[in-house]
């Protein structure tokens, strides 16, 4: 995102807004991650407790998703930067 069109007061405000949004986005990521991993890993309801198999699956799911998410974010940023550059050359 290009913030150069904004005044410094506006930029300061944007930073605050962005921080709040990041907090919100993180919580959203977190709750969707729990849902995603629970859906993939937990399918036995003969007991309330997590089996060791379910525990392992949940941990792997959470860790793997964070790695996936980092990679996807890096690619997204690259592609986005490339496309903005192309648009400015037009």
């Amino acid at each position, binding site marked *: 995102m290009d913030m150069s069109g904004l005044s410094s007061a506006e930029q300061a405000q944007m930073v605050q807004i962005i921080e709040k949004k990041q*907090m*919100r986005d*993180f*919580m*959203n990521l*977190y*709750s*969707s*991650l*729990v*849902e995603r*991993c*629970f*859906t993939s*890993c*937990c*399918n036995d*309801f*003969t*007991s*309330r*407790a*997590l089996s060791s198999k*379910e*525990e392992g699956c*949940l*941990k792997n*799911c*959470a*860790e793997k998703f*964070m790695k996936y998410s980092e990679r996807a974010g890096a690619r997204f940023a690259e592609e986005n930067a490339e496309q903005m550059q192309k648009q400015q050359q037009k």
Partner: protein
Amino acid sequence: MSFFGGSRNGGGLNNERIEAAMHEMEMITDVFNRMVSSCHAKCVNTRYADAELSKGESVCVDRCIGKYFEANKLVGETLNSTAQAAGGGGMGSSPMGM
């Protein structure tokens, strides 16, 4: 949304704290809605031959809700230890009051 409609006129109100409480409430609602949707998919027969939860479905629901809480805790802990291993300080405790 319009949740804070009145909060700007209010003398002596601490908007920060109301916002934080509001934020927590939204978060819990979000978790609850996702849990309701997950456990419905896991436990409830959707042929809808009748309107009652069977005994088996009821027991499944109770365990599913309990297990969802356990999963929530474990995922929170996993993210924390990953963040700590990456050099950060983690998030202190599980990212939500649940």
